[in-house]
């Protein structure tokens, strides 16, 4: 509580009134990064002898050209929003969590094992319990690199990347072993997937005949919770303070490594929820490739959303649409969807590179605000 009276909190908690500079720096600048990346993608397609208008046309058509396209975009946006919320918390604490991919897998594994084991439980109990178990599993997978950074200064970027690779192997091991579908074993197909989950744990569908499920609403609600957590609670305040200025935070009595480990654990938990929701909302079983790269796309969405839980909602929908569109592009005009991975990489480069202008703008505004206070 004492920290809230810190002079720096005036800046940390300072929320500007609406102004156009804000819109340009935080919305138009990142969005133009996406446009430039798509433009470079178009040039690459042209060099490869593919008609970019046809390819991008198929992409747009796939994402928003039909009811099923739009709902599918929202389905894909859901895990991105969960992952991105965790990334917001971690990056705000200056912890670069690249491990969402592995954390999603752990959440998915736990959310498969749990309902298969406790399949006699009624749905009203089993569904929330499964979500909690998924969260805890992801949080555990995030806690490891978090505590390694806090205690042994292990670079969290590298450790989370390694944890991703380990989780991938763990998933293979389980769906070809202990979690393999007994029906597949009996039939001799030996498909690398788990048994189908009991129906009472399935997420309710929002629109019949589509995959859109209640997880989308849960994700939006959680965005509000994370916003409240980061800007209206002491722990959230400290997480942001640790990220903005670790030295000042230490001086104010905040145990910096503890809050960084906490941020990483929460990020892991939210990614774990993404995995759990993907299993009980969409696939209803554990499969190879359950993450669909959401762990990386979620990072890009979080960056584009300005590491803000509310900015993340439109950013997730944008990238959800991009992923759905990429699949349609691959199906309709045979352009590999790995083009999207390359474009996402360019978006990350542009958004991280263009941050210099928003930083300059912020510092100029701070100076002008202070001058304004001085004269009044």
């Amino acid at each position: 509580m004492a920290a809230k009276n810190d002079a720096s909190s005036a800046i940390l908690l300072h929320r500007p009134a609406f102004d156009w500079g804000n819109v340009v720096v935080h919305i138009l600048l990142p969005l133009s990064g996406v446009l430039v990346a798509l433009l470079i993608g178009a040039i690459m397609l042209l060099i490869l002898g593919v008609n970019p208008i046809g390819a991008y046309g198929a992409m747009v058509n796939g994402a928003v050209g039909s009811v099923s396209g739009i709902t599918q975009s929202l389905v894909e946006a859901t895990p991105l929003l969960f992952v991105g919320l965790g990334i917001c918390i971690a990056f705000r604490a200056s912890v670069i969590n690249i491990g969402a991919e592995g954390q999603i897998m752990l959440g998915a594994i736990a959310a498969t094992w749990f309902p298969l084991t406790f399949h006699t439980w009624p749905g009203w109990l089993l569904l929330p319990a499964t979500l909690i178990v998924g969260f805890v599993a992801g949080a555990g997978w995030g806690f490891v690199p978090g505590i390694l950074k806090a205690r042994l200064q292990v670079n969290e970027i590298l450790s989370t990347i390694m944890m991703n690779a380990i989780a991938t192997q763990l998933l293979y091991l389980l769906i070809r072993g202990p979690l393999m579908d007994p029906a597949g074993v009996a039939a001799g197909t030996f498909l690398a997937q788990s048994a189908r989950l009991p129906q009472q744990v399935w997420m309710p569908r929002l629109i019949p005949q589509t995959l859109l499920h209640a997880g989308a609403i849960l994700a939006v609600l959680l965005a509000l919770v994370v916003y409240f957590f980061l800007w209206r609670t002491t722990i959230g305040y400290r997480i942001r303070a640790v990220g903005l200025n670790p030295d000042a935070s230490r001086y104010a009595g905040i145990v910096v490594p503890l809050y960084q480990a906490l941020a990483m654990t929460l990020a892991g938990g939210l990614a774990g929820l993404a995995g759990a929701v993907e299993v009980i909302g969409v696939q209803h079983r554990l499969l190879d490739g359950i993450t669909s790269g959401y762990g990386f796309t979620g990072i890009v969405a979080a960056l584009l959303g300005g590491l803000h839980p509310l900015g993340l909602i439109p950013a997730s929908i944008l990238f959800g649409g991009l992923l759905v569109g990429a699949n349609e592009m691959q199906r309709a005009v045979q352009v590999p969807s790995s083009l999207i991975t390359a474009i996402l990489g360019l978006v990350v480069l542009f958004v991280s590179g263009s941050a210099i202008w928003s930083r300059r703008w912020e510092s100029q505004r701070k100076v002008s605000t202070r001058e304004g206070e001085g004269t009044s």
Partner: protein
Amino acid sequence: MSTAISSAALIGILVSMINLATPLVYAAVGEIFAQTSGVVNLGVEGIMLLSGYAAFYVALNTGNLWLGLLTAAIVGLVLGLLMSLVSVTLKAEQGISGIGLYMFGLGMSSLLFKIMIGTVKTIDGFQAVKIPWVGDLPVIGPILFRHSIPVYGAFLLVPVAWWVLSRTTLGLQIRSVGQNPAAADSLGIHVDRIRYFSVCLGSVLAGIAGASLSIALVNLFQDNLTAGQGFIAVALVYFGGWSPWGVMGGALLFSIVNSIQLWMQVLGVKIPSDFAVMLPYLMTIAALMVTVNRARQPAALNKPFERGEN
């Protein structure tokens, strides 16, 4: 255990240790240059992938391995310039820009591979060159002196990199902009120019690392060929305490465990293959945990330089 390790198996393990270490040595020594100048380049994995693809594509279509190697170096240089532009000139958060470069390399190499090549093909890569006289020595000959030229190059690079970094004016300048860029700047050293040079040199070496995989060691290209080796190389830089010799030692240690593991699978020792595949990643985390020489870490690592700050 009845299958006692024969001397032939032992030689086999050591030969594959040298081979497995080669791309790691190139990439990690390159990363030492970037990090010593104060820039963490996490895009090494992406550079290795795209360069590895480029080298393979050129070698497949022209039959000229050297042209493939050169292409890989040029691709590395171009990506190094991109990384420098974002991380040095635009002062981006280096961890994030590196991940962007990784994703770009991963996606781009896969896209090009699927459109331009399509299926997994193999080529005749660089052949082993037996060094006269020493190559005929028992035991030592096959282990050390019957490799392809890119493999010799990796291990010759280590003393050269050590000499450049610790014994030349250029090395001193690289170290000074990584330790105290403001002081270096006041002495008239162009901080950004030295960092551009270091990142680009590191990226060229990462490019050669990718080519050493695709046209000298495994002689094929497929999606995600490197499988994390670029990130492991970055981890080895921490483990090796920013010294070329330390990094080489780390790469060899890492590779011998891997090659023993591979040989145990060949010999039919029962270990679940999934655990065996996890081993390099577990070892990398362990290596990061025992990084003891943190005092050697460049003081301005990961910190963009702006005149008039500090």
